[in-house]
């Protein structure tokens, strides 16, 4: 039983947790800056990114795909900025134009190349494939200390550990800047902080998180991981630091319960097949948000009441 858990469930749960944290932490700032939907835009362009990477390299392998996705995210962000500035178009609409356009282009190119293998990967890109990230070589807990066996852990785990660590350390290092730019951008500039650089870095971090998470949970569900845990955390506290910690807690809870319900839930209903774990993680994070919306201690706005 334990062995089975370590082989089939441990790594997916860990990856789900780390992906959730990687998305939730920058999500806090996006929500406070009213830019929650940049995550939406970025995750939609992951698909065209991997398609273009496939066209260029001709192979389906991870690194080119990740680079393609990251490149697409960067292109999208720049295009959104250009359209916003040049066309004087409100951010939401500019995002809508860019990510749907790039998504359509991706699908179009894909249909031209008609490779069934790629097609399969498109569905994974959209829906995620958390369940397949298993650790077959593991034999009980002692495998955690066996270097040879540890090497057989899925690469996705190492990547998401790296990304998650990267995002967490950047957040700690740039905490003050992030905080002041999010709160009062104009003031931040007067004390010598380059707000635009911070803003752009935040978007890049978001892109990195989206790209790292999409290969396990899929590009659309990433949106739920960006927004739901920090949004729920926003309703729990009035301190930014504590809010970020809450968002991490919620991301962890969503990953664990989502995975368990997806894997074992159907058994309780007498079905033998599990359901999509990534989808279920999104659903659980949605339920968490719903609960905080109804019962969160700080769910009501305190800002505009008095004057």
């Amino acid at each position, binding site marked *: 039983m334990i062995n089975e858990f370590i082989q089939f469930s441990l790594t997916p749960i860990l990856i789900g947790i780390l992906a959730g944290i990687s998305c939730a932490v920058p999500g806090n700032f996006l*929500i406070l800056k*009213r830019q*929650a*939907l940049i995550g*939406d835009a970025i995750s*939609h362009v992951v698909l065209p990114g991997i398609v273009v990477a496939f066209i260029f390299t001709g192979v389906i392998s991870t690194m080119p795909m990740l680079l393609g996705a990251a490149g697409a995210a960067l292109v999208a962000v720049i295009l959104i900025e250009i*359209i916003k500035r*040049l*066309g*004087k*178009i*409100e951010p*939401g*609409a*500019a*995002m*809508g*134009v860019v990510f*749907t*356009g790039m*998504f*359509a282009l991706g699908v*179009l190119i894909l*249909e*031209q190349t008609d490779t069934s293998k790629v097609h399969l990967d498109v569905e994974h890109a959209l829906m995620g494939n958390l369940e397949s990230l298993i650790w077959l070589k593991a034999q009980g807990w002692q495998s955690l200390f066996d270097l040879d066996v540890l090497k057989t852990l899925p690469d996705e785990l190492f990547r998401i550990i790296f990304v998650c660590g990267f995002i967490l350390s950047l957040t700690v290092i740039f905490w003050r800047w992030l905080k002041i730019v999010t709160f009062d951008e104009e003031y931040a500039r007067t004390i010598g902080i380059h707000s635009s650089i911070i803003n752009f870095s935040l978007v890049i971090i978001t892109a990195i998180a989206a790209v790292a998470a999409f290969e396990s949970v*899929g590009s*659309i*569900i*990433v*949106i*739920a*991981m*960006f*927004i739901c845990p920090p*949004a729920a955390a*926003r*309703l729990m506290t009035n301190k930014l630091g504590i809010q970020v910690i809450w968002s991490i807690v919620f991301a962890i809870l969503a990953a664990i319960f989502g995975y368990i319900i*997806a894997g074992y839930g*159907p058994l309780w209903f007498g079905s033998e*097949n*599990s*359901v*999509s774990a*990534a*989808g*279920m*993680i*999104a*659903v659980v*994070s*949605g339920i968490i*948000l719903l609960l905080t*919306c109804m019962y*969160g201690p*700080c*769910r*009501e*706005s*305190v*800002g505009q009441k008095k004057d």
Partner: protein
Amino acid sequence: MNTFVQAMLFQAGYNVALVTVGAILLGIAAGSAGTFLFLRKRALVSDAIAHATLPGIGVAFIIMIWLGGDGRSILGLLFGSAITALIGLFIIEWIPRRTRLPEDAAIGSVLGVFFGAGIVLLTVIQTMSSGRQAGLESFLLGSTAGMLFQDAIVIAIGGFFSILGIWIARRPLTIVSFDKDYAISVGYDVRQIDLLMMGLVLGVTVIGMKLVGLILIVAMLIIPAVTARFWSNRMDEVVVIAGFLGGLSGYIGAVLSASAPSLPTGPIIVMIAIVLFVLSLFLAPNSGVFSTFIERRKTKSNIHRRQGLLTIAKGENVVSSFTRKLLANEGLSRTDGLTDKGKKLVTKILIDENRWIAAKEVYPDKDMNINYGIKLIEETLTKDELLKVDQYIKSHKFKSITYD
């Protein structure tokens, strides 16, 4: 190419013609409905609505199977999708009203969570009745190959009714998206009209899903509206232009897709819309990138010229090197002062300056600052207004500025 011409002329078979008509109608409906959404600054609500249809499709399929049906009945699936989209819409409205969270967070969470639930249901369906290919994935990216007759009919009729609905509701929709406060003051119920707007968007989304897929239907709502904005500043015109652009994209896209089987309908329609957008972004006569760029440079020169000439006329030094260069290049000033040409222009500018000052006194309630310094007053006031200003200047109440 032959099929292309045939398809263009609606001669490539009954089904193709029907799909083409459907795509045009859908394009018109989406373009014009999207305009209201865009001008109301809620473009991405449509993205959440679209993604929130997925669980509805899944639930409808499962229920239809349970009831012993085929599960693929398009009307049943569309009905189911409309229900969950409506729930999603309700939550998007509820969260910012009940909590401190802003609307964009509500949009994003509904989008992600509902799509996640949809994916869960799709995995349930995949295992539910083995061997039965539900083909529900086509709702994600749209139908790639030929469409069923039944689907085409639904799209064509649905598109027609959406346009009809928009036409009937055009006045309240216009007022609310143009000026919410005014709409309230003349007695419109903004919340209800917003709901009506969302209802129309939802209708277009549900109908268009089969053709372009739920991820891309958003493009048909947003892109033509944004494109149309470049061509007009008038609300009613923008709606019509957006409808036209949407219809055009639908038409060209459907025709191209019919003539080349490897071109899926949805993405190609969106790409056509994108091409129209990019062309407008750069080339539109008043607000396109090129004309804005030229205008901006002109404005900058105008301001520096005026500012510089007035400074010299006052006998002060021009500090900005840009201004000095500009004046020298245009032959308005030399190192020792103004040229004759420059002096002439100063006289003209002084008249304009005095007119602005006088106009402020003649029309104290009018916002006279908007074009000051950038345009001549002739371009801001009507002829009779200007006449009144000039009379005021001639009267003794007004003290003109003059420089020696």
